[in-house]
């Protein structure tokens, strides 16, 4: 195997193992910390795919904001008692069954994938000459301007909704 393939193999093994650790740990804080390592690996994989801006976003938003939100909620709720009880629902064999069937199904499909779409204009050299952030920005603010505005609306709704839902009493 060449060096990039070895690099990818390390990331694939680590990410699969870390995902398994996330869904099987008993203590939610441990799950969140495994998720943090997983997000660092995903960001490195984005760097490997020449998406520097997304790697930064992955660290800043996922690891810096969303996981901290999860940790805050775990700290606010008193979960000492829950850690001693069993971690899976009683239908967990069905969960494993559905997961395995889905994985086998998807893996069988992947063997049949043949990408024959024409290549776009953003080759590695084209992106490198402008810089990745500028390339993303040009596409985002021209072709995807309306979805960008709608995303801002979604964030506004989330802010207002979170405050209203978590407030104790609304006058």
């Amino acid at each position, binding site marked *: 195997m060449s060096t*990039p*393939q070895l690099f990818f193999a390390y990331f*694939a093994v680590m*990410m*699969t193992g870390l*995902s*398994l650790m*996330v*869904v099987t740990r008993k203590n939610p804080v441990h*799950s*969140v910390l495994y*998720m943090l390592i*997983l*997000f660092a690996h*995903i960001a490195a994989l984005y760097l490997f*795919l020449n*998406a520097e*801006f*997304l790697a930064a*976003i*992955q660290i800043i*938003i*996922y690891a810096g904001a969303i996981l901290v*939100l*999860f940790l805050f*909620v*775990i700290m606010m709720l*008193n979960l000492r008692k*829950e850690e001693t*009880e069993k971690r*899976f*629902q009683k*239908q967990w064999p*069905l*969960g494993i069954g*559905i*997961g*395995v069937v*889905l*994985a086998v199904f*998807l*893996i069988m499909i992947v063997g049949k*994938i043949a*990408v024959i*779409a024409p290549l*776009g204009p*953003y080759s590695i050299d084209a992106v490198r000459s402008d810089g990745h952030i500028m390339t*993303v920005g040009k*596409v985002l603010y021209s*072709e995807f301007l309306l*979805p960008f505005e709608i*995303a801002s609306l*979604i*964030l506004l*709704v*989330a*802010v207002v*909704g*979170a405050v209203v*839902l978590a407030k104790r009493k609304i006058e």
Partner: protein
Amino acid sequence: MVPLSWYILLSAVMFSIGVFGFLSRRNLILIFLSLELMLNSVNISLVAFSHYLQSMRGQILVFFIITVAAAEAAIGLAILIAFYRNNPTIKVDEINLMKG
């Protein structure tokens, strides 16, 4: 050069693990974490396709998915706190107020 199918395989395996966690865990916080895991696995496949097709659209889509995931986590955890205040449990098999 790493073939595209390797990325898709990794994404499929991570997505299946996320589905398993979503269906099997009792703790509502872990269910939200499994949801984030599934969204991330989809992001990996989108970025891989974007790289191999030399197109920017996949990466823009990932940008929007991250936005929606942040909003979803905030709203979901707010609902969780509001629920916990009335009924101090976050185990999904004990949340059966509407069960008739």
